[in-house]
């Protein structure tokens, strides 16, 4: 009997009616660097969360110590919590559909044989690359993190299910050493060590710092805006992802419930949530409750088609889970997007810029996550933008605030959808041109 099954058995013995155990074992290898390697670490991270139901009373306890004694204590604690909490009238049952979807490209076997030296060589290669070709920049901060994870889910209805996943993330930040306070940055998230291309990252981060040494705010104005793919991936993924999340819909934090099967967006927009996409950074055989993952159409030619669910929220509405439960070992599962993909169009970024008489190209912002999905209010402070004049990038722009309403934008203000699909974490999008946004500047 494995640890998960032991814990479930103990919970049932202590009087729980249902029990579920989630175990995460993760090996993290992490290098932090600036113009040289600063630190190097390895973490053997582990955690177990046990959720129990006694009738409709729910409790959760978690621990990072995976000995039988400690897990036994954790189970006792979870049951004790469940015994004293008020009933959840909406509770139906734990996930009662376990299973695995066949998925590809989510685990890199080669990590097992990856020496520390090879990791260091790769990072140093990236640092050196940034300053090649006489570029007047300095690498100011960066990190490479390799996660090698094993996730197991067990509940009282099913035996333990396990999947493995690798996830490699890196970022590099640079600064121009003369001409002005200007920075550059680039990041990448991949599944495979071989896909980690430091030359590309270093080139982008270094060139960006050089491009913006003369950046200045512009006057307050309304302009068309082109968002770089990684920026639109985050912003559109965040704004749309929140609104199609069943948790937000059921709680009145999204107004989308009444809009199902209606045209809420431009008919050129199609968005899918796909837990099965080959090499996708959130591809997995089953979700955090053991439910198989799937591909769910969210927007089809601008028509709102589906929402995302875990089993609790699905049962509340008497529909099926979409395999979107996500949790850490110490939290309850909540619905969360898997690979969230805004389908690309056919226009290259180059042509989008060429076709713009006057506008703002936005590469990077801060504070974009302070936008409010429920009301659609979208804001960001542009740190790296370029004024477009007569089809060409003309002046570097920084320190202006952009604002617009997401619902209006996807319906009436989409000018062009680019072809250059890229990902920002698990959110995928091409560059997008919006016909008008408000810009607060000087």
């Amino acid at each position, binding site marked *: 009997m494995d640890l998960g099954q032991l814990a479930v058995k103990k919970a049932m013995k202590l009087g729980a009616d249902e029990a579920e155990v989630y175990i995460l074992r993760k090996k993290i290898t992490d290098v932090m660097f*600036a113009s040289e390697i600063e630190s190097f670490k*390895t973490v*053997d991270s582990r955690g177990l969360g046990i959720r129990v139901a006694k009738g409709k009373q729910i409790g959760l306890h978690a621990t990072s110590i995976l000995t039988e004694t400690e897990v036994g204590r954790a189970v006792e604690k979870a049951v004790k919590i469940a015994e004293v909490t008020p009933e959840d009238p909406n509770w139906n049952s734990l996930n009662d559909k376990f299973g695995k979807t066949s998925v590809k490209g989510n685990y890199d076997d080669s990590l097992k044989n990856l020496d520390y030296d090879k990791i*260091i060589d790769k990072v140093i290669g990236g640092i050196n690359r940034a300053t090649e070709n006489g570029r007047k920049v300095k690498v100011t*901060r960066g990190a490479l993190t390799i996660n090698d994870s094993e996730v197991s889910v067990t509940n009282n209805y099913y035996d333990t299910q396990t999947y493995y996943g690798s996830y490699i993330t890196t970022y590099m930040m640079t600064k121009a050493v003369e001409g002005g306070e200007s920075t550059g940055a680039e990041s990448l998230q991949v599944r495979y060590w071989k896909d980690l291309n430091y030359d590309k990252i270093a080139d982008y981060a270094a060139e960006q710092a050089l491009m913006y040494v003369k950046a200045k705010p512009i006057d307050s104005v309304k302009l068309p805006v082109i968002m770089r793919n990684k920026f639109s991936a985050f912003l559109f993924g965040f704004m749309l992802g929140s609104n199609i999340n069943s948790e937000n819909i059921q709680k009145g934090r999204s107004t989308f419930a009444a809009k199902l099967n209606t045209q809420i967006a431009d008919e050129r927009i199609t968005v899918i949530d796909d837990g099965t996409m080959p090499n996708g950074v959130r591809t997995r055989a089953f979700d955090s409750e053991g439910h198989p993952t799937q591909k769910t159409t969210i927007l089809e030619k601008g028509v709102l088609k589906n929402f995302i669910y875990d089993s609790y929220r699905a049962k509340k509405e008497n529909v099926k889970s979409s395999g979107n439960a996500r949790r850490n070992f110490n939290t309850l599962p909540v619905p969360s997007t898997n690979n969230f993909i805004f389908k690309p169009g056919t226009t290259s970024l180059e042509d989008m810029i060429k076709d713009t008489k006057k506008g703002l190209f936005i590469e990077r912002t801060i504070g974009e996550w*302070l936008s409010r999905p429920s*009301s659609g209010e979208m804001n960001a*402070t542009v740190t790296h933008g370029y004024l477009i004049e007569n089809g060409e990038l003309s002046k570097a722009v920084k320190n*202006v*605030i952009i604002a617009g309403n997401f619902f209006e934008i996807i319906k009436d203000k989409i000018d062009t959808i680019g072809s250059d699909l890229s990902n920002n974490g698990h959110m995928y999008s091409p560059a997008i041109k919006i016909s008008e946004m408000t810009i607060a500047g000087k």
Partner: protein
Amino acid sequence: MSNFKETLNQLEPEKIIDKALKLGASYADVRYQHFSNEEIRVENKSLEEYKSLDFGGLGIRVVVNGAVGFASTSDFSKDSVNNSINAALKLAKSFESEKGNFAETKTIKFDEKVSIKTDPISVSPKEKVELLMETNKAAWISDQIKNVITIMGSSVDNRFFISSQGTQTLVQVPTIGLIQIAVAVENGKMDTTYHGHGACSGYEFTKKYDWNDFSVDLSELALRSVKASSPPPGTYPVVVDPRLVGILVHEAFGHAAEADLVFTGTSTLKDRLGEELANEQVSIIDEGTSKGGYYIPVDDEGTPKGKTVIMDKGVLKAYIHDRNSANVLAVSPTGNSRAQDFENQPLVRMTNTYIDNGDYKFDELLEGIKEGVYIKNKGSGGGQVEVGMGTFTFNGGESFMIRNGELAEPVRGVIISGAILDTLKTVDAVGNDLKISTSYFGGCGKGGQAAKVGFGGPHIRVQEMTVGGR
């Protein structure tokens, strides 16, 4: 989880240090941590979540030839601990570096905790759920209130540190906090407001507030806010309230004073020591133990954290340091080496950072402003800074236009943005109502690590701030 000191004794941290030294380390330290917490969330008058956590483990840091290697585990078996020691050494030997050259510090023995009257975890779950239910129920003062979330969190953080240089510290810090989020809707417009209180305290903290009033007050703010409109975008003189000043000085200035960011060239404060960067009314302090703040008597390298004057009367006086950065500048470490937890290495971090008191009364700050904005934190929050460029952006909460030296109509959705050094220069008046706070909720993020901090300040006036609306 088992008793902290019992587990610690079984781990025999001195032997871990000895072993690391025998295997070739010139320095080694061990951190053992046990963090436990509990979070209860009530939404729309029903209990949504009741969860708790025991998070414990150890981190081993070694220096070989000036390079730092680090490994951590929460598996305390002999094999696993040995694997971690070996891994830390192997990592340190795999690259060249001088980050492991540390400034001298005094060897200290330190064992202290924040005393509390009532451990929140020992209070009956029923009592805690009832408090949250009552607070949540009080918020429903109008049909226009559509969603109310109330969350209470509490934790106890035990941190043990021992180094091969003989320093040994043990610190126990409790935190608690209660926050509420209220959503109001009117004519299809929706506004979300947020507020909360917190402290390094036990459950007795909850008796200090009238949570009914707190709840009603936040809902009233949500109702006012949803009716208000945004200020026209542009540049204004603004008056900023203590909480937002605290966040601003932490994010927009404090990070730039972190010595590691100065050395890498990230910070706009590089090579600026001794320069006058702000009006002489502005002094900025980082202090380990200050009233209302988080309790950090000693950092995660065993260095006592006293009071660091970063800016004195407008002049940049010091950076904040860990032992390595202090060594580079040949100064004393300031006790600012802090790790999120045992799985992370310490970084240069702030503790309680604030603008010190000035002379102005609130009304005097408004004087002379023809058209401006009074920006409060209450009702909102959140912000971000690009340290390399010195650009910051923050969400304001409840805000008011200032017209002819007086507060006028409320405005909503205020977003401020600016460049740190430019903005500091236009701070022309500092109030005398310093307030510092901390909470279970929130904190500071750097290099992927979160840390508990305190922030604050008095009201200040800034002559030029970019203001955008939603």
